[in-house]
């Protein structure tokens, strides 16, 4: 298992003929192995940019992304072997909002993509794929082309595809954003189970306050212009979700209080952006 560190990351986009945009300013963040951190913020706060930097699709203007292998210690040190992220790699899996499945492949081929490109033995991959499809409840759909599946089922394929590669860190960019409200709630339960079962380190980007509260052990609220971390919460709900029903948790006074607090914070940020735009 690896810990993930975002070290003083800043990102400045320069559009030709425009002013430089400070998408991210001095972001510092650390995820211990097995932690699930949800990231919330108004549109334009740079949360997707941050995820793309961690995934290695963008290189930051300054700062570094580090992975620390805690199972292998550096000689004469307490910390594990540290490596810097330079580009995309199989150690960081992605789950996108939608449309990132390979529609020319069947469900099982999609899930097997990672092991296949890595040249893993077919027998072993088959076993992994079969187990994962069972876990996400799609074992009868293995041979189907993915485009015949509903939106919720497609996102379950995307989760399975990511897990088949056994990444150190999973990066989710609004994975449930395109689903209808009911499917979304069901998927949240599934994600919670998968997370506990696999003990993966996860960054979850979402625009749903409820989802961020329910799934995150920690919740980070980002603010725009420049994109920065505004506030951080430690949350009990993800742990409760393993024993209690999601509906009960979401209806609890504690949950509602937090939800309203965060909603009004984001609301104010949005107001400020609008006001500034009008002025």
């Amino acid at each position, binding site marked *: 298992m690896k810990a993930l560190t975002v070290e003083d990351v800043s990102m400045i986009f320069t559009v030709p003929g425009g002013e430089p945009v400070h998408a991210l300013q001095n972001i510092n963040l650390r995820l211990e192995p097995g932690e699930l951190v949800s990231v919330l913020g108004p549109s334009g706060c740079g949360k997707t940019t941050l995820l793309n930097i961690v995934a290695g699709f963008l290189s930051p203007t300054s700062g570094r992304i580090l992975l620390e292998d805690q199972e292998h210690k550096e000689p004469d040190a307490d910390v594990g072997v540290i490596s810097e992220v330079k580009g995309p*790699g199989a150690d960081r899996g992605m789950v996108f909002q939608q449309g990132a499945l*390979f529609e020319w492949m069947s469900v099982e081929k999609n899930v097997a993509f990672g092991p296949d490109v890595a040249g893993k033995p077919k027998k072993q991959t088959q076993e992994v794929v079969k187990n994962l499809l069972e876990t996400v409840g799609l074992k009868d759909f293995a041979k189907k082309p993915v485009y015949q599946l509903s939106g919720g089922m497609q996102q379950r394929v995307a989760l399975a595809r990511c897990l088949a590669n056994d990444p150190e860190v999973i990066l989710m960019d609004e994975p449930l954003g395109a689903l209808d409200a009911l499917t979304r709630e069901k998927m949240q339960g599934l994600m919670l189970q998968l997370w506990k079962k696999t003990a993966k380190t996860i960054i979850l980007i979402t625009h749903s306050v409820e989802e961020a509260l329910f799934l995150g052990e920690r919740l980070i609220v980002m603010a725009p212009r420049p994109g920065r971390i505004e506030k951080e919460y430690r949350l009990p709900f993800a742990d409760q979700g393993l024993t209690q029903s999601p509906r009960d948790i979401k209806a609890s006074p504690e949950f509602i209080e937090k939800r309203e607090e965060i909603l009004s914070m984001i609301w104010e940020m949005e107001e400020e952006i609008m006001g500034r735009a009008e002025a």
Partner: protein
Amino acid sequence: MSDRNSPSSLMIWLGLADNSFTRQKTVKFGDASAVNSGRAYGIITVLLLLVLWWISTSFGWIKPIYWPSFGAVFSRLNQLMVEGFRNVELWEHVSISVYRVLSGVFYGAIVGVPLGLSMGLSSVARGMFDPIVEFIRPIPPLALIPLIILWFGIDEFAKIFLLFLASLFIMTIAARAGVNSVRISKVHAAYSLGASKLQVLTRVILPNALPEMFTGLRTAMGVCWGTVVAAELVAADKGVGSMIMIAKNFLQTDTVVIGIIIIGLIGFGIEILMRIIEAKLVPWRGKG
């Protein structure tokens, strides 16, 4: 589901009655999906045209030199099937034209697809080939015939080269459009699943570009079929185009009409065949 007033399936097939779903729509004018096939009227139109043909020629309203009679066309068709045209069998005229189209498109695809892919993937290739492609693309292939005759004469190679040029740029542009249509999230997903550049190309970009390439192939077939007939009109001793051109010199209007019908049928057949192959080979078209 069946109520007493529901029309028979024959009436629905003929388009004389709407299907059960459309019958329940109250807004039909302006809803294109509520316009049924109108097949009955299509059949009537074709029959009327045939009757008009038969009457107008058998009453001598039109001289046979302008438009042949029904019977003349059939007996000529029979003669062409048995004896051929100018010592060349009818099927050979047809097959040589089809062969030219297929080889032209084949070579066009062999060269055009890698060219288009490279233009979509590398700025060097894009910069090098873009001026050439953009310049030659709007030139109708027929305008190149004089130059090609000067270079290569009028033998088989010249014709296939013309068709090669006609399909080359269509295939290049189709392959480039295919690469450009790849959603970046798919490419990102592949890289973060550990794929190498080569694997991204073969397992993501190529299959993703395949539907576009098929559209290109279909367009190229259509354009080449038009071009081959025109090219044969100019210079050839075999092929459907040359057949009708030579027949004209002998005032054999019936052969000309037969040739035109064959050209139409084969053009239509190519289109249908390509659609069937496409549905079989790239069923994921538009489903991403």
